[in-house]
Structure formats: structure tokens, C-alpha cells
């Protein structure tokens, strides 16, 4: 982790509520792994005050660029849209622990909700590079928000889409789709991000099927480097509960240990 002042190569609106930023990462010598994140200063001045955490969305080793996909939420993300191609962005990272892909996992299931797709897309990219088959369920409010579908398909993933707009995104229906996927594919591990309800579903599914699972969590952050203990969550171990830092031990955790509220 370091503070970098990197050139923005593009920063454009990709749908109603989402923006996409490409940054020149040639300065970053550290390895960046899917599931890791950067803490970004959204504006020069002291307003907004804190940095904002964003997962790495794509890592392009050849072009030496990294990409972020972000949802406009409040002041920070609004200001982030003001940064123009050619300008610099102050990013701090890479931070945290990313996803793990075990060699024996030849087929994996991704379940992403909303902007959670930004986090899982990087994993799908990595999976493709390791010739791991990805089956992905993407859930969103509207079809307009299902923006990374093509990106994932480009990585060879088999993508199922569910939305409120189509009335297909309820947990029961997603569970049915998962059941169907398990009938067709020998899923070795499950990954999820972006929704408590869907994470609980995935937790149940991976437990029932007795396969490993991983989850990328979000929590409000202070330092993003493990010193302030703002971003904790609980892991249930056999005999005790452990408090861990999303920014340091996470944001990716063992799905079967995370205590979901």
C-alpha cells in the first residue's frame, strides 16, 4: 500500500447511476488482487473530508491500467465524477486481502447484487485467466443497472440476470436459479458481494452443499489500513467470536464464518 497520484485515462457515465474510471497504474509495482480495494480522495479540497473505498473492478496487466466501477451515492461519489481524463486522482492502496482461487476449483458461482458486481468482476477476470469456469447471477434494481453483464460474458462467464424491474430478483427465485445451476454445474465454491439477503442465501447454499464460500464485505472506514478499528465485523470460529477489520483481514472473508446481521 502506498499513496499514488495517478493519471485518469477516462471517467465516464455508463448508466443512470454508475460511472466507470480507468486509471494509469504503471507506477504501481505491488501486485493487485481481485477483492482488494483502494481508498480514493474524491476531491482536492477538504470537502468531502474522508477518502472513499472502492474495489478494484478490472486489472489490465498488459495496458498497466486499473478500473473502478462506482455508483453515485453521496457527496464523495458525486465529486469523483468531476475528475476529468488527463487529471490526477489521489488513490491509496492496494488495500486488504482479496479473493482466493484454489487450484482444484474448476467451476465457481458468483452472486452479486448492485455495485457488488464491481468487486466480483475482477474475480471473474482472474478466473478466466486461470481457466476457471464462472457462473454468475447478477441482481439489480433495473436492467439498466446490470452493466457488467457483457464484461463478465467477455470473460466467458455464464450470466443469469435478475431485477426488480422484471420481478425476478426475490430471494426465492434466486434460490431456484441457484438450484438449477447446481444441477447443471459442479460448483466448487461460491462468492458473493453486495447484499445481506443474498449473502445469507449463499451462506445457506454453500453450507448445504458443503462447499467453500467467500464474501466481500463493506463497512464504514476511517483509516482503511488497519489502525483505527472502525471497520470491524465478527467471524464465528468454533469456540469463539473474533472481531476482524474489513480493511485489513478483509474485505474478503470466509463466507461460512462471517456473522451476517
Amino acid at each position, binding site marked *: 500500500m502506498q499513496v499514488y497520484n495517478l493519471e485518469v485515462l477516462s471517467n465516464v457515465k455508463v448508466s443512470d447511476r454508475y460511472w466507470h474510471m480507468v486509471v494509469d497504474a504503471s507506477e504501481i509495482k505491488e501486485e493487485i488482487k481481485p477483492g482488494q480495494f483502494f481508498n480514493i480522495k474524491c476531491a482536492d479540497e477538504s470537502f468531502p*473530508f474522508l477518502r472513499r473505498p472502492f474495489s478494484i473492478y478490472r486489472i489490465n496487466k498488459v495496458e498497466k491500467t486499473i478500473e473502478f466501477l462506482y455508483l453515485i451515492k453521496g457527496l464523495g461519489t458525486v465529486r469523483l465524477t468531476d475528475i476529468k481524463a488527463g487529471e490526477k486522482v489521489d488513490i491509496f492502496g492496494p488495500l486488504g486481502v482479496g479473493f482466493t482461487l484454489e487450484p482444484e476449483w474448476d467451476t465457481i458461482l458468483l452472486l452479486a447484487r448492485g455495485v457488488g458486481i464491481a468487486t466480483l468482476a475482477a474475480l471473474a477476470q482472474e478466473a478466466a485467466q486461470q481457466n476457471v469456469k464462472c457462473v454468475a447471477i447478477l441482481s439489480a434494481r433495473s436492467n439498466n443497472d446490470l452493466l457488467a453483464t457483457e464484461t463478465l460474458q467477455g470473460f466467458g462467464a455464464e450470466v443469469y440476470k435478475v431485477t426488480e424491474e422484471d420481478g425476478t430478483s426475490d430471494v426465492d427465485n434466486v434460490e431456484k436459479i441457484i438450484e438449477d445451476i447446481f444441477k447443471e454445474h459442479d460448483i466448487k465454491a461460491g462468492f458473493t458481494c453486495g447484499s445481506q439477503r443474498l449473502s445469507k442465501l449463499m451462506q445457506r447454499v454453500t453450507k448445504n452443499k458443503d462447499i467453500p464460500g467467500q464474501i466481500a464485505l463493506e463497512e*464504514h472506514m476511517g483509516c482503511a489500513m488497519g*489502525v483505527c478499528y472502525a*471497520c470491524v465485523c465478527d467471524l464465528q470460529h468454533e469456540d469463539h467470536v473474533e472481531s476482524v477489520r474489513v480493511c485489513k483481514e478483509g474485505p474478503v472473508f470466509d463466507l461460512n464464518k462471517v456473522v451476517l446481521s
Partner: protein
Amino acid sequence: MKKPSLSVQIGKLNLTNPIMPASGAFGAEMEGLFDFDKLGAVVPKSITKYPRGGNTTPRVCEVNGGMINSIGIQSKGLDYYLEHIIPAYKDYETPLIASISADSIDEYAEMSEIIGNETGVSGIELNISCPNLKGDGKAFGMDAAISHELVKKVKNVTDKTIIAKLTPNVTSIQEIARACEEAGADGLNVANTLLAMAIDVHTRQPKIGNVLGGISGPAIKPIIVRMIYQVKQVCSIPIIGCGGVMNAEDAIEMIIAGATAVQVGTASFIKPMAMIEIINGVEAYLKEYEIEDINELIGDIHIPSQVTNCNA
């Protein structure tokens, strides 16, 4: 001009420069960022005697010019601290100031005695802003008599430099500062966070899980600078200024107000290299104004003609 001297003294501590981290906003996790020996001292997060879980999330929220936190001294306990935290700094020469929190005066003394015996520890900062569980629940640092007793008991059990970290949530910080000085404190940290609150108007819920938290960052700097100035008028032991320092100018402002050293907390969250930038900036300032020794600057405020009046 020759390189100005930045070194300052607090009790038995010789600091190569006046800049150090604020407790709770620093840790060995920052090792990759810069050489800790560049700092005047290191101050790890406050420790409690027994392991503690800390408060409900969200533990931080952003406000105009700062943030509110209510971490709740998440701590792995004293044993872990002695075995793992202190040794993590053993390769550094810069002094380590151990910040401690406790539930009773006796517990402060007990912890100070144990920590005071550690060779890895050069000084102890008493975080007396925590509630006195054996008293009425008010923070120790809100009562001059209790603060006096606390510092005195601690001074009796250790020879290490003792710094009392005051709470700013008081009517008269001078009174508490005087009590600590009289009890033998070697230095005063002015100050901890101000008690604060923020509410999400859409959910009508507090933005902090614990409802109340402490505000830090530039928003509080003018209040802290005032307190440093006030304490300087009535105390002669060194003051460590703390609260809202974002850059070298802020640190210098506190030094001029009367601080011998300056702690940097929240700034490191926004600019992880903040402390290094501040040290360089302070040195550049001394050069610019041809000040050979930073000690000349401490409390050297120029007041044209003093008027005291209603400030409201």
C-alpha cells in the same frame, strides 16, 4: 542558515522532533509507508487491562471538517500488548509512548506499573477521557480531584515519563491541567476528542452505532488551540497539542499557542504520509523565519494589546 534544531523534551523523553501520532490513529500496520524513526515518538492505540470488544458499527462517520468516532477502545488486553504490540517497535530508536485506558484509578496504577517496567516503553500517556466506572460514569478527566489522585498514584509506581491526556469536554481545562501538573505529571496532552453526535435525517438513526462519539479533525482545531493557549498560561510542564492538525502550519500554530509537541491523528487517514510532510514543513518554516531552535517558538505568540471582554 544551518539546519535548525527540532528536538524537544517532555519529562525524560528526548524527541528528535515534536511530531508524533495520536493514539488510535497509528499502528505497526503503517510500517510500509515510512520509517518510524523519522517520528518524534510512536504512540500505539490505547490499551486496556483485559481484552475488550469495542462498540457497535458504524463506528465512524464523516462530518463537516472532520469525523466522529466511537471505537470504544477495542483492545486485546495488556498481556497481548506486552507480547505483541510493544515488541513490534523494538527495531526503532524513536521512543514509544504507551497509551492506557482503565476503569478505575487503581487499574491505571496497576497497568502503569507493569508497562513502566517494560524496556520498550519510554513514556505512558494516561487516556483519562474514559468514564470512571467506579465513580459516577463521568470521565476521570472531567474532575480535577480525581485527575489529581489518578496521576499521583501512577507517579508513585513508575519513573517513566507520565503524560495526562485531557478531555476537552470540560468547563475549565486549566483547572484539570493544574491538578495534573501538581500531581506530578510530566506533560499534558491537550486534548482528546469532543463529544459529538450526528443523525441521519432519512432513517432518523444516529450515524454512530454507539449514538455518541468523539469529533476529531480540523473542525475542532480552533477549540484545541484555545485550550493549549489557556493551559500554557497556568502550567509550566510541556504540552502536547492534539486535535485537527492536517499540515505543518497547523502544527506550528499549536506550538506558537504553547505546545512543545504535536500529535497527528485523523490527518493520517486522509494523507497517510501526513506526519512526514508535517515534519518537513515545520523544518522549512524554521528555516524561512531563521529560527535556530524550535524551543524558541513554543508559546511565542505576539499579542498586540490584550483586551478581555465578552466573547459571545
